[in-house]
């Protein structure tokens, strides 16, 4: 299944049968009312859904716009990742798998997978680049406390992209009894659509809450984009509405090659990790190094559906620099008493930019994908 020209199943033959099995199992899972009720119950009673749509009392008020935060940071584990991991872990359990494999960048997905594995009784192994292990040390301890094995990845740039490579390699050897619980809407089919569906709970709630509590749809919905799962989950339920959809990408230190992770703004089409999408690469198709102050956005690719939404002009993608993200991180903390994840701070910064530009009274929602406790060391240790 493709999103326009994007997506596909560019996988080694050894993964083709596991991917077909997974696609079949996922179709059955979607139609299985009992499984869906179990997932709904886990999301409500374990993860803490629904999350509030909070109208900022102070942030952005000077612009005349209204900024509302979709508080995914309040979920169990402190990030939207649990929406996906509970869904996939339940699917894995229903299809007879006993073990979960995951990659992680910021550590949030690893933690969310470890939680899902613990509660559903599945073994968990998380692959994480050693650079990320260092900058997200508290999450490594959390994963281990939750019973997961964290396996350091020392190849390449030693970050998220290399962790995905390693998880794919491990899955190639263990697909019989293991499920690869991918953390974003990337990878070969069916992963991008599966993750999108599981994260769409964000946009579905947001849409209903905006109507119920603000009396209207938002004028713009903003979310940060690394692989793009919280953004696609925010956008998809709003696709049919007159709502501007804005993705905030990692602008890093600026848009010179190697200084950022803005794969939609600066990328070109190619295949990475099983899907045809927009990538940061050189003219010969070698993936180029990326940089972002936030580990979760430090990725040279992006979910294929985002590449399509960009091409058809349905969503806009803006690079936000490290410095802007840090400023937004501090501002939200001071103004609203909410410490956002550095990833989410990119979306906050983009929303503040929009609030300046858009007509007075505009309603802007920001998906606050996670909380920022994990980033304190980065911020206090020198920031951008």
């Amino acid at each position, binding site marked *: 299944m493709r999103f326009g020209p994007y997506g596909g199943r560019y996988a080694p033959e050894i993964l083709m049968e596991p991917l077909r099995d997974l696609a079949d199992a996922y179709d059955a899972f979607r139609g299985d009312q009992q499984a869906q009720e179990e997932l709904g119950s886990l999301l409500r009673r374990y993860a803490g859904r629904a999350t509030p749509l909070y109208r900022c009392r102070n942030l952005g008020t000077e612009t005349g716009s209204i900024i509302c935060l979709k508080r995914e940071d309040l979920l169990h584990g402190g990030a939207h990742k649990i929406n996906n991991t509970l869904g996939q872990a339940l699917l894995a359990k229903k299809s007879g798998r006993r073990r979960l494999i995951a990659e992680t960048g910021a550590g949030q997905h690893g933690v969310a997978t470890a939680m899902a594995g613990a509660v559903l009784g599945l073994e968990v192994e998380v692959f994480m680049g050693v650079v990320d292990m260092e900058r997200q040390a508290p999450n490594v301890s959390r994963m281990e406390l939750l019973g997961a094995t964290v396996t350091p990845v020392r190849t390449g740039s030693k970050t998220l992209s290399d962790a995905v490579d390693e998880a794919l390699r491990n899955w190639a050897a263990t697909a019989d009894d293991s499920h690869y619980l991918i953390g974003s809407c990337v990878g070969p089919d069916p992963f991008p659509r599966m993750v999108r569906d599981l994260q769409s709970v964000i946009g579905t709630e947001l849409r209903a809450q905006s109507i119920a509590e603000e009396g209207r749809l938002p004028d713009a919905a903003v979310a940060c984009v690394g692989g793009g799962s919280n953004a696609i989950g925010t956008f998809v339920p709003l696709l049919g509405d007159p709502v501007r959809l804005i993705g905030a990408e990692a602008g890093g230190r600026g848009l010179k090659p190697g200084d950022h992770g803005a794969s939609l703004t600066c990328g*070109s089409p190619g295949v990475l*990790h099983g899907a045809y999408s927009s990538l940061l690469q050189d003219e010969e198709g070698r993936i180029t190094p990326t940089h972002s102050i936030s580990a979760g956005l430090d990725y040279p690719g992006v979910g294929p559906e985002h590449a399509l939404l960009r091409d058809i002009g349905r969503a806009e993608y803006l690079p936000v620099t490290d410095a802007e993200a840090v400023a937004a991180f501090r501002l939200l903390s001071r103004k609203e008493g909410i410490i956002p994840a550095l990833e989410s701070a990119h979306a906050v910064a983009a929303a503040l930019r929009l609030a300046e530009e858009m007509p007075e009274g505009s309603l802007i929602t920001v998906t606050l994908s996670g909380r920022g406790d994990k980033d304190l060391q980065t911020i206090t240790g020198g920031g951008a």
Partner: protein
Amino acid sequence: MTRIRDAFVRRNQPLLIACTVAGDPTPEISLAVIRSMITAGADMIELIVPSTNPVADGPVIRRGHERAIRSGNGIGTVFSLIEAVRRESEVPIILMTYANPVIARGEDLFLQDAARAGADGILVVDMPPEEGASLITQERLDPIFIIAPSTPTMRMKEIGTLGRGFLYLVSAPGVTGRRDHLPADLGSRIETLKAVTNLPVAVGFGIGSAGTAEEAVSAGADAVIAGSAITAAIEASTGDPAGDVRAVVGSIRGGIRPS
């Protein structure tokens, strides 16, 4: 394009396919390594395009990719190595690559340039037949497809009708890398595969010694593919990588046809 088929038709013994990452660690050493592989008895050369994300490779070949990339080698190195080998040998050359370098150049142009340089076959690791229309419909190079331990029999049959040259049978689940022994069910898997295709079967993944090569041949392989052992010899070499590779290839060759 008929070099691969001819090699299998002419043979009266199993063939040895020797692999190396193009430009590992430099183009000069790489060319010397390929020459050594030929003089040590390799019947075909599989040249690997350096990749930044070699997801199907184990640690040894991955480090080969990293060395080649670090010294700046890309597709230019690959094509000039093929040209250099072709000037002095009729050995069949198979280009092994991940999808992205092919797509970045444009699939048709890549295949055209590879054929012009003198390659005979192409294996794109992460381009299964479903995504590989450009490989299947062209006539310049033999498209080589992989059969994995997880590939069902029906799919083996389909892939057998789409590939040319030979089928690359992966010996065991996982990534490239040497093993002490090949799985016990290899023989029955080769038998199953041969029942549904007429293409020769080359076995790869896990073969790095005379012993494992012999196991593959006794299990019914028409050819064995060795890569990690060769890359490991380059990596461990203290002065004469080409000589060290010659010794390794010679030893593996001894497992399939004692001289």
